[in-house]
């Protein structure tokens, strides 16, 4: 695997390999010294054209835990504001010979184009409303830890599917891991033809009680002004996941940031069924695993001075 551009590109085996790697990093995370020397001397650029808390901080921390040199560039305050094109920005950053470029961009296909412009490995940290593969991987990781396997698990993804890259990547990832996915939301927010990706579509929460997992999406407030929904009140009345709609056997997930009281009620977020905190924690180890797989794993990535083969070695441990 040279780049991580989409979930679409990954086979089930490749997904499992990344998750297995993430498990080993989780073990490292429980040690006193949480850093491994794997990427020592190599450079990771993180380039964010959109605001982000979880994704950017966890990729940054993942690179640091792997001992890479990290350059974080935010579009705000950079030459992007002076009108530099994406292509030229990538050429500039590539001059530092980074091993990887992690990119978040507001438009579909941006990461794929970047991969054509740089010799570095490219990680898609979200491209428009297209894909968000690292989010899907951390969600599958979280569920796999809880449930052992996703085979035959029924998952409902609820909310603004139309504007959600998380919905698209997760739908593909969940289905590839054997889950049965239903997309649920008002008809104005379900893209026409999405069922051809291999999922069911429901315009109401009737039947959600059958699901083992309910995955709520963020509902952005500006959607009202564009007539996608008449009001957040009406949206919440029909689609909010609250303790009344969530039964005690079900697991609740959300990619964050949450609009409390809109797509999720406060007590649902804070309930023991909520995996939201685990998702955030999983983000770090899964993103370490992604960087590792691209830069040190697989064929010929690891070298002798980076530890023994594919097993991460903590700093200070005799090799």
């Amino acid at each position, binding site marked *: 695997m040279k780049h991580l551009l989409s979930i679409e590109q990954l086979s089930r085996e490749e997904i499992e390999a990344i998750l297995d790697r993430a498990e080993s990093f989780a073990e490292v995370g429980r040690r006193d010294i949480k850093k491994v020397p794997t990427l020592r001397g190599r450079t990771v650029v993180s380039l964010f054209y959109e605001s982000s808390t979880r994704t950017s901080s966890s990729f940054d921390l993942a690179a640091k835990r792997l001992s890479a040199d990290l350059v974080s560039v935010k579009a705000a305050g950079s030459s992007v504001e002076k009108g530099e*094109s994406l292509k030229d920005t990538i050429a500039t950053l590539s001059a530092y010979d980074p091993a990887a470029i992690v990119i978040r961009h507001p*438009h*579909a296909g941006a990461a794929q*184009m970047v991969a054509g412009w740089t010799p570095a490995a490219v990680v898609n940290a979200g491209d428009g409303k297209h894909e968000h593969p690292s989010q899907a991987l951390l969600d599958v990781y979280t569920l796999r830890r809880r449930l052992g396997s996703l085979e035959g698990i029924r998952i409902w993804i609820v909310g603004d599917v139309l504007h959600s890259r998380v919905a698209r990547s997760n739908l593909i990832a969940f289905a590839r891991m054997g889950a049965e996915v239903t997309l649920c939301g008002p008809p104005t927010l379900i893209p026409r033809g999405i069922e051809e990706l291999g999922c069911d579509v429901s315009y109401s929460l009737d039947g959600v009680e059958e699901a083992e997992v309910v995955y709520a999406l963020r509902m952005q407030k500006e959607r009202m002004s564009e007539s996608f929904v008449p009001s957040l009140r009406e949206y919440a009345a029909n689609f909010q996941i609250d303790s009344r709609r969530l039964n005690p056997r079900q697991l609740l997930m959300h990619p964050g940031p949450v609009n409390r009281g809109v797509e999720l009620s406060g007590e649902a977020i804070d309930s023991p069924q909520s995996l939201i905190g685990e998702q955030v924690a999983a983000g770090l180890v899964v993103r370490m695993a992604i960087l590792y797989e691209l830069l040190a794993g697989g064929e010929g990535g690891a070298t002798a001075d980076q530890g023994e083969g594919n097993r991460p070695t903590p700093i200070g441990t005799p090799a």
Partner: protein
Amino acid sequence: MSLTDALDVRAGENAHLVLRRATVLDPVANISAIHDVVIHDGKIAELASPGEADADGAEVVEAEGLHAFPAFFDPHVHLRTPGHEHKEDVETGTRAAAAGGYCGILAMANTQPPVSTAADISALREQARAGASVPVGFLATVTKGMQGEELTEMVELREAGAVGFSDDGLPIVDAGVMRRALQYQHLCGGNIALHEEDPRLSRDGAMNEGPVSAALGVAGIPSVSESTMVARDAGLAGYERARIHVQHLSAAESVEAVRTAKAAGVQISAEASPHHLCLTDEVVRSLDPHRFKMNPPLREERDRQALIEGLRDGTVECIATDHAPHQPEEKDVPFEQAAMGVTGLETAFAALHTELVLPGTIDLALLVERMGGGAEPFDLERPTLAPGSEANVVLCDLGAEWTVGEDGYESRSANSWCAGRTLTGRVLVTVAAGQVAFRLRSFSLGVAA
């Protein structure tokens, strides 16, 4: 009107050519036989029996196994001048047309500034007389500055030589303005060519709305954004007994709307582009903005089939390239941000021959007929090989394979939807308005007798 009466071209030497033993196909004049095509002083002098024409000082082209058709006519080209000459101009655009086998093109008015005054038309016509390889006509905008609000001085524009009117690139959203333009047409004449799209349905869409856009997370342009406007304007044209030409049909529902209007007696004509006839939105999965980002967008297989059926039954009377050159910096950006449009003049015939004729989807004769069908909707005589006509001839090698872009382009821009494709069928010589407008460099012409 003949092409040279209504359009402008650089003056040059009249051709003296004999195309020896060419396979002549002219579906309009109903000619399909092997002839020596004798072009004398810029006119088709004779279709002689094979091998029997007297060269009489003319250049002789050994054309055995090659096809001679009436040269093509494209009613929808963006020459980008004035204002965007870094993309194309009259000289490069008409060279591209000549290389594609065209003997006439119509240039759209969505330039910078838009072509909205008689002075704009006069200046462009002068440029064409100075540097156009093939006859070119200019449309003027329907509304001032393409604002969709006030009509241009359509009478004066016609007197200055505007072949017709179009706000192409943008729809005329206000039905009241559209109606006034149609009423006014009874005074000024000239067909009105329409880019049919309801921006309130297209919104920020960048591709066809359907399963592919759903999978990509790219905002979709629904087919009804086009078809509801076609139906609206067909209704208005029928009511006002006016005449419209619908540009670049893309959706099955639009083809049906045109068919219904024609059956009801509305004066409506329609065009389809080679890329809509050959491709579907499946190729957009690549998110390649250079080749596959255009408006209207590539649609689904059912739409493509409807367009082909429209070509067959005459609902769509002509093929128009919507040749839309752009420079790399406008295309080397993520798909949703990229400029709309692809070039098409140099590849239209070869692409359609490869994708539709060779697999047996349509006949060669139908393709040749529709490649010339764009003249009549604008009151121009369609090119023909009938003896006595002005020589507008394209000589093709239908067996020649070539890879698009390998030898560069005549166009100033490289955003061809065919870039990298291997096509079968190549234009060797184009005679336009009686002059040799193009000859393929690698094709050696016979020695003058």
